[in-house]
């Protein structure tokens, strides 16, 4: 019954137009691996597995897009952070590598075609674009936004303290992180993806003034660079980002994906005319609730945010690995059932 191609559906939403119905695109990572029947470690270390699992997940549920994301630490890894790889869980950094000015001086912008698993992600995108890019909206990580990447390199609390103790140190580091994102983004853009995704979970924990100084200008530079290449950008924050919605929109991001702690009606009112909103069914509910509850929550999001277009239905963050399939099916069904345009509030 859906006539429009999924990729067109999301593109229209991103342009603030009304597609045939609300697009639905929860960004699955660990769940994609589980759903494909492989361990997280196997998923995040092979281009072939990553691409296959991502496509398989979109096919399982009939999502309008494909999300390609290996993990949130691979830029840091390519810059020298050693990771610990649990068998069936996302990898994470062992220890910060930038503690002194000397270490900062030694830090290099990685080469996305050579360093760490960056080339693997580029390769996975080539595979995905080739196989489904004509049909599904392909969104790839460049993941950690500059401030979030800086946190991984110096340590989260250290980054917070540096905002007070030595802001110039942090700004120098942010320059390198920004350059890293731009180079990585260019390599990924060249594969033909439609959108790149930057996450900054930590942004919900800093003040608007700090966001303005340490995150916004750097995000904007990455986003401008992506726009020059004709690629749109998703900016994602975990947690309660109500304080910074306008500032997130000021970055120039095309899509803002936000967590369930944000009131979606308020987000629509405050920034819905400037950015496409993606969200925000609670991942906890999607993990533990019933399909009926998920449907009701999704319907609520649609009622509050879909009118006039510029909305993509999703979870507030990535669903947990063992999220029941029935609940994600219910999310997708809700988009089809309640999301037919025109929708009035």
């Amino acid at each position, binding site marked *: 019954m859906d006539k429009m191609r999924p990729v067109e559906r999301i593109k229209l939403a991103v342009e603030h137009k009304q597609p045939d119905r609300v697009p639905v695109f929860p960004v699955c990572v660990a769940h994609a691996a589980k759903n494909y029947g492989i361990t997280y470690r196997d998923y995040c270390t092979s281009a072939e597995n990553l691409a296959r699992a991502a496509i398989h997940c979109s096919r399982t549920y009939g999502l309008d897009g494909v999300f390609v994301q290996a993990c949130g630490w691979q830029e840091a890894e390519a810059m020298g952070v050693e990771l610990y790889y649990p068998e069936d*869980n996302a990898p*994470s950094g062992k220890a910060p590598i930038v503690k002194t000015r000397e270490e900062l001086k030694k830090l290099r912008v990685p080469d996305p075609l050579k360093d760490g698993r960056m080339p693997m992600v580029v390769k996975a995108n080539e595979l995905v674009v080739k196989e489904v890019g004509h049909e599904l909206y392909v969104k790839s990580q460049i993941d950690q936004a500059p401030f979030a990447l800086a946190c991984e390199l110096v340590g*989260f*609390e250290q980054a*917070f*303290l540096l*905002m*007070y103790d030595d802001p110039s140190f942090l700004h120098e580091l942010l320059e390198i992180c920004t350059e890293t994102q731009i180079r990585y983004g260019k390599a990924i853009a060249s594969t033909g993806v439609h959108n790149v995704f930057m996450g900054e979970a930590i942004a919900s*924990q*800093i*003040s608007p003034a*700090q966001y303005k100084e340490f995150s916004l200008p750097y995000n904007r530079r990455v986003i401008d660079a992506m726009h020059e290449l004709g690629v749109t950008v998703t900016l994602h924050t975990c947690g309660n980002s109500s*304080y910074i919605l306008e500032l997130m929109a000021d970055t120039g991001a095309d899509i803002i994906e936000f967590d369930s702690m944000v009131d979606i009606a308020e987000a629509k009112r405050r920034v819905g005319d400037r950015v496409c909103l993606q969200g925000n069914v609670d*991942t*906890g509910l999607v*993990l*533990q609730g019933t399909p009926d509850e998920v449907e009701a929550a999704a319907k609520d999001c649609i009622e509050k945010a879909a009118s006039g277009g510029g909305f993509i239905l999703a979870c507030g963050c990535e669903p*947990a*690995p*063992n999220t029941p399939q029935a609940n994600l099916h219910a999310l997708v069904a809700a988009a089809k059932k309640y999301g037919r345009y025109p929708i009035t509030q």
Partner: protein
Amino acid sequence: MSDTLKQLTEAVIAGNATLAGKITEQALAEGIAPTKVLTDGLIAGMSVVGVRFKAEEIFVPEVLIAARAMKTGVEILRPRLAGEAVPMAGTIVLGTVQGDLHDIGKNLVAMMMEGVGFKVIDLGVNVAPERFVEAINEHEPDLVGMSALLTTTMPMMKETLEAFKAAGVRGRVKVVVGGAPVNENFARQIGADGYAPDAGSAADLAKALVVTG
């Protein structure tokens, strides 16, 4: 209250560690009792910070610098407090449960615990039940604190408590749990001794539990 203590409170709230250190010394020089400097100066400041954080007026970075300022003062007081024969509030073994790597909240809890006089043994993140058990045997703490930020790692709190029982150490410690998805009800269900919604109340709760024994 004396002006000096008021200034000390302000220095902690502002997160000015250097100033907090200076004023702590000044207060002692003025002859104010170390316990008074601690409670009415340093901890009073941190309490205000806790309230403002809960009200979402300030953010994690401000809490961190305030905690650091408090700690600076506490370090100066410590030898004097010992002299006054104020016993340590107790020892607490703290950690984020296995499978969970979130530690910002847990670290704030550690700072507040230290602030109210606990010796904190911080086991870090991704702490396996056996490591908690080992630490109980090694440090003989009064309390164990567990933090979890993921719905998927909350069950690990229960497993850890079961490991305590299996190892025969459950009766030797009080157990406090916390973290964003955790609540009072859950704490009761898994048989913990207490739950605290934030770092300030965690410290208060810990003190209360140690006193009631």
